């Protein structure tokens, strides 16, 4: 075999190997969570709050964290959507594509995307203190919203880039205002993309521990007020895995399994729904 064939073979093996490592790591993670978590998972765990006065103790369940995470995820996604949509519409419909302003906004969003979530947590904490707010659901929602806005805005941005310019032109040629173009046409055309962006961001937000550590706090109760602390699944897992008790640690894996399944369900729903809504889309 000559040198070029060897070279070809060598790099092919590296590439295929990397692909296999990627796939295997997902399988390993999922199977670890399943194998360790499934035995401890019970109905009680999903429908009960922690019992016995002990933080995430041996009794009861993690309903507080499940509901808390859902509340923070939903609230943050709604808030982030309320900011991201206007930003992206402004860039695409009111600004020219190559304007300096648009470039600057995109650059800032990309930088924000890279900011570690603990920094968002610390920032949220500072702002919270400034407003005299304690760790609470609302503080958690705001912080997680900040964390996912760049992700959501840039994903929607990419979706809107795919829309042919002629669609804008033909809509404006009919006498639409830019706002009508955005609200009646672009939103429809981009709907599957917007939905996917929202659900990806939801998944990202619900799984983040560092941003809620100081801002949402933790509690054994299910969420009942915007101004009281809420529990979240990532923190529940963190606390459970940090205990010296093997059965509590096992419950930590069960919590991780719940969180994983939740995110899995969200991405499956995202795929199904975006299929459903492509009916009217112009390809």
């Amino acid at each position, binding site marked *: 075999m000559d040198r070029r064939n060897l070279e070809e073979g060598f790099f092919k093996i590296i590439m295929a190997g990397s692909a296999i490592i990627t796939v295997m790591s997902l399988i390993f993670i999922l199977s670890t969570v399943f194998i360790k978590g499934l035995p401890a998972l019970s109905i009680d765990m999903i429908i009960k709050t922690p019992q016995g006065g002990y933080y995430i103790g041996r009794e009861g369940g993690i309903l507080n964290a499940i509901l808390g995470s859902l509340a923070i995820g939903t609230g943050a996604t709604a808030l982030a959507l309320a900011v991201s949509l206007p930003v992206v519409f402004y860039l695409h419909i009111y600004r020219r594509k*190559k304007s300096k302003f648009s470039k600057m906004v995109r650059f800032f969003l990309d930088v924000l995307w890279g900011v570690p979530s603990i920094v968002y947590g610390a920032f949220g904490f500072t702002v919270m203190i400034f407003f005299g707010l304690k760790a609470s659901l609302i503080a958690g929602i705001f912080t997680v919203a900040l964390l996912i806005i760049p992700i959501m805005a840039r994903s929607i941005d990419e979706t809107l880039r795919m829309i042919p310019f*002629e669609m804008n032109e033909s809509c*404006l040629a009919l006498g639409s205002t830019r706002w009508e173009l955005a609200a009646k046409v672009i939103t429809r055309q981009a709907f599957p993309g917007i939905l996917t962006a929202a659900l990806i961001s939801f998944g990202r937000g619900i799984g983040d521990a560092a941003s809620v550590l100081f801002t949402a706090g933790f509690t054994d109760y299910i969420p009942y007020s915007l101004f009281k602390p809420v529990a979240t699944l990532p923190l529940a897992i963190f606390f459970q895995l940090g205990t010296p008790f093997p059965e509590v640690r096992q419950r930590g894996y069960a919590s991780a399994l719940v969180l994983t399944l939740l995110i899995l369900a969200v991405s499956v729903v995202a795929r199904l729904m975006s299929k459903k809504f492509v009916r*009217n889309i112009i390809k």
Partner: protein
Amino acid sequence: MYYRTHISVKNLNVSYGSQKVLNDISIDIPDKKITAIIGPSGCGKTTLLKSFNRLLELQEGVSIKGQVLVDGEDINDPNVEVTHLRKKMGLLFQRPQVLPMSIYENVAYGPRLHGIKDRKALDDAVSHYLKEATLWDEVKDRLHKPASRLSIGQQQRLCLARGLAVEPEVILGDEPTSALDPISAERIERKLLDLKNRYTIVLVTHILRQARRLADYIIFLYMGNLVEHGPVEDFFENPKDPKARAYISGQFIESSDA
């Protein structure tokens, strides 16, 4: 021959960045006639067409100088509502661009924007303009199906219906038949001839025979300059400019002064 003027262009200069696209164009577009803008690719035909309804200003890095008067009114005057101006002009593109909604909603889109809310009135408008665009028989049983499922020829007729439904005075066509099969193209051509008694029609085309079949008036552009314009017979039978003569006879244009 005397023509009443509908759109009047005065000393129009357009450039994209440093590249000049239209060079001091002054031309009157006759009312209720078909005017064809012809010329080789890149000569500024589409740019001229899009200057009439101010779609041009959406282009990247464009600068526009000069005047365009529609019904005697300067369209760039700050008092002119751009939506109102555009409502006066239906636009057909090279490739039909339907909106991401049902066939019915596509036609009803314009009337809804301009304030028609009554269901019955909308139904009537939709069926009327679909008939006008000779699409009704093909779609009357599936009005609420996505417009994207129509063939490209049907989509172009849907775009025509959609454009007519805003009740414009002018129909602008940017090579509206070039993406269509011959039969669909012919239907569009027939329809345009049929509509010219009621609308001022301006077509960009690179098909000389089409210009000859449809147009009453010809505008010949070359490299951003207005080279020749006149009634269709004069232009084709007796072109004055050597470039126009060469273009009509299918020769290369000697670009000595380009």
